[in-house]
């Protein structure tokens, strides 16, 4: 199968100290890849590298990140603007906080569409409503005219997913998208992401420390510790028959619900 996003021997450094070492993986169309590890393992850093979000002190010091024949770390800001948001979407831990508190969701949708193409409000609204419909939003009209503080945490997160899907990107990067939510709401957001893959065929990289979330949605899993790949393979293999000592330790530490 064709490879959509290809990390080849990526090393990432902050102020000259390397924090991610020699990481390679491939993302295929429609695949959901879970990047798991504990705090400081480098999982968020890996996806930020593809989005050019490492900040002024961080950079990719070795290796390549190939996407549509281009090596992302080599691209100029102008070129990146055509990829970020348009071809690779991103959602964050707390979408409520990454939205502007003083504008309605609708205004922000118009703004994010206008960043990529010429669009008027009516057209933007029609696009958004069609998308809300596909994502089974109960009351799209209300979401459109609400400020982020008027929506629940879970609804903000779903609105964030909808905004990321506006341009119909081929890849969706999700950085701890369920970690700030209650369990019942977590499930909704996981189902939302699975629905996105179902409807749009989007490939998703989900960064999380929550093994439960990964086991519910990932096709493949990459386990990181201190910036090194501990294990990479099919989700079933990694979860059921972990080979690596760290993976075994990590999985055994997760409290699991006994249902009898």
């Amino acid at each position, binding site marked *: 199968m064709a490879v959509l996003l290809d990390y080849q021997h990526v090393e990432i450094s902050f102020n000259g100290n390397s924090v991610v070492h020699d990481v390679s993986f491939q993302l295929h169309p429609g695949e959901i890849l879970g990047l798991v590890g*504990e705090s400081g393992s480098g999982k968020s850093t890996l996806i930020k590298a593809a989005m050019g979000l490492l900040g002024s002190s961080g950079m990719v010091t070795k290796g390549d990140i190939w996407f549509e024949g281009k090596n992302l770390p080599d691209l100029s800001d102008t070129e990146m603007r055509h990829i970020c948001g348009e071809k690779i979407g991103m959602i964050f831990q707390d979408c409520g906080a990454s939205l502007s508190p003083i504008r309605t969701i609708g205004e922000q949708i118009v703004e994010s569409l206008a960043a990529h193409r010429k669009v008027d409000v009516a057209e933007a609204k029609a696009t958004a409503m069609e998308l809300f419909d596909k994502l089974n939003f109960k009351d799209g009209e209300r979401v459109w005219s609400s400020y982020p503080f008027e929506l629940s945490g879970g609804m903000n997160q779903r609105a964030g997913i909808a905004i990321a899907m506006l341009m119909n990107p081929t890849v969706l990067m999700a950085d701890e998208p369920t970690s700030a939510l209650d*369990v019942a709401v977590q499930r909704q957001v*996981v189902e939302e992401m699975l629905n996105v893959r179902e409807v749009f065929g989007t490939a998703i990289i989900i960064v999380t420390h929550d093994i439960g979330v990964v086991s519910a949605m990932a096709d493949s899993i990459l386990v990181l510790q201190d910036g090194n790949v501990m294990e990479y393979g099919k989700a079933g293999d990694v979860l059921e028959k972990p080979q690596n000592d760290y993976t075994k330790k*990590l999985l055994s*530490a997760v*409290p699991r619900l*006994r249902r009898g």
Partner: protein
Amino acid sequence: MDHVSFSVCPGEILGVVGESGSGKSTIAKLITRQIDPTTGRIEIDGQDVTKLSGRALIPVYAKIQMVFQSPAGSFDPRRTLGDGICESLRNKGVPKAEREAKARSLLEQCGLPGEFLERYPHQVSGGQCQRAAIARALMCDPRVLIFDEATSALDVTVQKQIIELLQQLQKEKKLAYLFICHNLALVQQFCDRVVVLYDGKIVEQGMPDEVILCPQSDYAKRLVDAIF
């Protein structure tokens, strides 16, 4: 909160679960008298503490101590861990050598070397800081410890170590725990009894396995179903 009644027995671990806004942390605030109930009574060791204030609360606080979600946030960043741990005994007028010796011994029981007394919160990891916070809570020999999401901010491998430490301390010191936690699987592993809160009301209480294997209330059913 509405008509919430429950009790914690000596040496028991009681879990309190529920989603955000259900009133879990409000329970901790009521018990520690940071807020006042409009009606109802809170008794600790047979003593009604609901109306106590000022100096009368000091002996009550010696029986009940808290461990918080963010360990680094619960220590003064400009003072050493030792300062924070010894504060309760310093306020009681215990001599320096004596309180430091006790702090050292408690730190060691919590799995940290005694020299951590000299460290500042930013010089230790989250798990180490939480161990120090547990030592701090044990300084005045409490009967009850309240944990408000005390392991939620920790990595799972560290969480496991802290839970093992809590189990061991509980056996040695015959402590009662009120364990506030949103992770039902962890509560099932760790607690003797569980109270399920929803919207300020107790919707269910019982042994964790009873509640999880055959939940009676709609909310508890939904909660159990939502877990991956």
